[in-house]
C-alpha cells in the first residue's frame, strides 16, 4: 500500500467556495427516529420498488416495504417500526412523484407482533461465494450513495466479457459544504477497509485506488492507517482540489489515466468500478453484521441553519425534522437544497424526505444565493474553459435557447454530465447547465418516442 499523487489532470474544472469548515469536525451524530417517516419507493436509479404494504399495516424495523422491481432496482425496508398511515405518491427532491410509505413511528406494536428489528444473517465474507455476497448487497437494499443511486449489485456484477481491473473508491467529495464522506472515512475507516476487501473479492481481486482530494489530509491519514497492512495492489491517490473531481469519469482519469468514451459507454468498459465510500461502508455492515441499509449520513449545513452537523438519520426522515435536529433555521432561508450546491436540487418545501442518496441538506441565506438572468451570452469562453467534458457550452446554450436541439446534439450535449461548472463561471449568469438538461431531456424523449414507434411497427 502506498500513497501517490494523481498523475493526470483533466482539462477544465472550477474552484467553488468549499465552505466545508461549517460541518467539518462535527462528529457524526445519530438522530433519534422522528415521529413520522416518509419512505419513498424510488430511492435509487431505475424502476421504483414495488410496494407490498398498505395503510393500516404495522411494520417492524427492517421489514420489507417494497420489492425489487426488475433488474435495475433495489428493495426498500422499513427504517423504523410503526404504523403505515398511508401509501401515496410524494415528491422526491428531483421533482418526480413516486409512491411513498408514510409511517407513524409513535404507534405501539399491536398484540402478537414480534417488534424486534429484522436483520439478515451475518455472512463470513472469506468463505461466502461471490453470488452469496452479491445477493447480500442487493438484499440489504444498497445502491450508490454518492448521488445517482445506481444499484450496487448491478455495478459489482460486470456483464460477461468485461473485467474489472480497478476498483476506485470515491472519497473526493468535491461538492461544496458536504463532509459526510469525509467523516465516514475518519470515523469508520475500519468499515471502509472491510467493505473494500469484500468488494475486491466480489470483483475478482482488482487493483484498488482510493481517491481523496488533497484538502482532507486527516482522511488520507485515516485511510493510510486503516489500509496499512492490506496486501495486493492498493494505492491511495491524492487528487488536486478541483471540482468535479468526484465525477466518475474524471476520477477514473485522475487515478488511472483512462478515459471513458462517450455515452452509452460505462466505466466498466475501461475496466473500472467506482464506488462511493458510504456505499462501501454499508456493504461491510450488510455482510459482517447482516445489517440492512436503513440510515445514512447527511451533512446539514449552510449559513441559514443554526448548527451545521453531520447527521446519521433514518431514511425517510423529513427535511423539516432534520433541520429541527440541527437547531432550526437561522434567519431567513432563501434556498433549500437537497445535495450540494453544484449538483443538488433546490426544493420548494421542507416536507420532503431523505433517501439513500441524500448526501446533504443545505439552507442558504439570501447572501449566498444568486439569480440567473436572461442576458445574452457575451462569448467570453469561460464556460468552455470550465467544462470538464470539454464541450462548447456557450454554443449548446445558444442553440437550445433558440430551440435548435439538433445543433445542441451535434455539439455533443449528451456527453454533458450536468456538473454545473459552466453556469458557475458565466459572467452573464446564463442557466447554461439547465439549457443542457433541457436539450438532453428532449433528445431522450425523442429517442424513446422513436423506439416506441419502432416497437409498434415491429409488433404490426
Amino acid at each position, binding site marked *: 500500500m502506498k500513497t501517490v499523487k494523481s498523475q493526470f489532470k483533466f482539462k477544465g474544472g472550477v474552484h467553488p467556495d468549499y465552505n466545508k469548515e461549517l460541518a467539518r469536525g462535527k462528529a457524526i451524530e445519530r438522530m433519534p427516529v422522528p415521529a413520522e417517516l416518509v419512505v419513498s419507493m424510488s430511492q435509487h436509479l431505475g424502476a421504483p420498488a414495488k410496494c407490498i404494504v398498505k395503510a393500516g399495516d404495522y411494520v417492524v424495523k427492517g421489514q420489507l416495504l417494497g420489492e425489487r422491481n426488475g433488474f435495475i432496482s433495489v428493495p426498500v425496508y422499513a427504517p423504523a417500526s410503526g404504523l403505515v398511515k398511508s401509501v401515496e405518491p410524494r*415528491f422526491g427532491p428531483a421533482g418526480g412523484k413516486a409512491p411513498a410509505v408514510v409511517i407513524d413511528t409513535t404507534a405501539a406494536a399491536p398484540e402478537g407482533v414480534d417488534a424486534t428489528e429484522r436483520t439478515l444473517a451475518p455472512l463470513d465474507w472469506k468463505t461466502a461465494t461471490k453470488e452469496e455476497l452479491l445477493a447480500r448487497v442487493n438484499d440489504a437494499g444498497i445502491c450508490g450513495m454518492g448521488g445517482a443511486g445506481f444499484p450496487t449489485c448491478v455495478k459489482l456484477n460486470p456483464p460477461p466479457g468485461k473485467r474489472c481491473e480497478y476498483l476506485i473508491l470515491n472519497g473526493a467529495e468535491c461538492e461544496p459544504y458536504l463532509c459526510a464522506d469525509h467523516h465516514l472515512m475518519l470515523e469508520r475507516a475500519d468499515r471502509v477497509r472491510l467493505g473494500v476487501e469484500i468488494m475486491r473479492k466480489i470483483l475478482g481481486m482488482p487493483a484498488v485506488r482510493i481517491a481523496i482530494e488533497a484538502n482532507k489530509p486527516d482522511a488520507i491519514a485515516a485511510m493510510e492507517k486503516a489500509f496499512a497492512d492490506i496486501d495486493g495492489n492498493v494505492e491511495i491517490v491524492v487528487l488536486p482540489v478541483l471540482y468535479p473531481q468526484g465525477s466518475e469519469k474524471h476520477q477514473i482519469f485522475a487515478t488511472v489515466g483512462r478515459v471513458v468514451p462517450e455515452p452509452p459507454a460505462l466505466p466498466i468498459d475501461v475496466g473500472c468500478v467506482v464506488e462511493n465510500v458510504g456505499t462501501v461502508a454499508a456493504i461491510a455492515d450488510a455482510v459482517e453484521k447482516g445489517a440492512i441499509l436503513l440510515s445514512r449520513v447527511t451533512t446539514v449545513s449552510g449559513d441559514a441553519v443554526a448548527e451545521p452537523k453531520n447527521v446519521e438519520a433514518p431514511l425517510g426522515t423529513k427535511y423539516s425534522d432534520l433541520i429541527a435536529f440541527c437547531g432550526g433555521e437561522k434567519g431567513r432561508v432563501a434556498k433549500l437544497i437537497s445535495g450540494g450546491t453544484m449538483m443538488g436540487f*433546490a426544493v420548494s418545501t421542507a416536507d420532503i424526505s431523505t433517501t439513500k442518496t441524500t448526501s446533504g441538506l443545505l439552507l442558504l441565506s439570501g447572501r449566498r444565493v444568486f439569480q*440567473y438572468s436572461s442576458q445574452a451570452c457575451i462569448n467570453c469562453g469561460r464556460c468552455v474553459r470550465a467544462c470538464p467534458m470539454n464541450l462548447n457550452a456557450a454554443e449548446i446554450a445558444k442553440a437550445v435557447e433558440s430551440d435548435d436541439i439538433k445543433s445542441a446534439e451535434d455539439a455533443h450535449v449528451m456527453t454533458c454530465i450536468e456538473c454545473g461548472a459552466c453556469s458557475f463561471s458565466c459572467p452573464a449568469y446564463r442557466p447554461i447547465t439547465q439549457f443542457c438538461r*433541457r436539450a438532453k431531456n428532449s433528445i431522450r424523449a425523442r429517442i424513446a418516442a422513436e423506439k416506441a414507434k419502432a416497437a409498434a411497427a415491429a409488433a404490426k
Partner: protein
Amino acid sequence: MTTAILIIAGIGLAAAATLAVADICLSVKEDPRIGLVTAALPGANCGGCGFPGCDGYARALVAGTAPNGACAAGGDACAAAIAKILGVAATATEKRVALVKCCGTRSEAIRVGDYNGICDCNVAAATAGGDKGCTYGCLGYGACANVCPKGAISVQDGLAKVDKRLCIGCGKCVAACPKKLIELVPASATIHVLCNNPDKGPTVRKVCGVGCMGCHLCERNSGGKEAGHFTFQGFLAKVNYENPPTDEQIVAKCPAKCMSVDPHFETGH
C-alpha cells in the same frame, strides 16, 4: 449531300428510339393519386396524423395502410375530398381541439417557490416539480405554445390558453406538457371541467381557489350518475366527451368554479 442528310437523320432516329425505350424501361411509376391526395391535404405538415408530413400520409393513404380521416387539421372536408380521389369511405371524424384542463391563474392558484430559470415547463417541472402549489396544474411556461405549429396557444396570467379557431388538433401540445393536462376534445363540446387535481377538496383548496373538489354536484345537476355525463378520477370530475352535458346551467352551479362554458379563448385572428 444526300448521304450526309440520311446519316444524320439515321442518327437522330436511333437516338430518339433509344430515348423512347429508356423512358419506358427506366421511369419510376408514381401513382398519380399520391400527388392528388397530397394536394387535398392541408399541407400543414404538423405530423398529427402520425406520418412524416402530409406527403407521408398521402403515400400511406394511397398504399391503403392508413385510414382516411387521420388528418385532424383537414377535418371532414379533407376526408371527403380524399374519399373522392381514392374511393375509400372516410371514417367519420369530429374536429378535435386542445383543451388546457386548468384554470388556476396566478391570482387563483398559489406559487410555492420563486422559479428562476429558463422559461420551459419541462425543466421547470424538473426543479422540485415546479413552482406551482398545485402539482397537477399548468405551470404557464409555455412548453405547449412552443411546439404548436399553428401558434394557437398563448400563455396568459400563468395559464396556457388555446385559440380554438387556430387549433388543428394535432396533439403536439398534449405530448409536450409535462403535467399531461392538455386533452383533445370534440370542438363541439362546450362544457368543460378545467381542473386536473384529483386530490381531496381541502387539499386542493390549500393551493388553488378554483380547483375541483369532487363534490359531484355537476353530476347530480346533469341528471345523476345514470345520465353519464361525468366520470370521476379520485376527487376530480371529468367530462365524458362521448356523451357531453349540454345544460349550461350546471356550470354556474359548480361551487368550485372550475367549470366553464367554452373556455377556448379566441383572438381576433
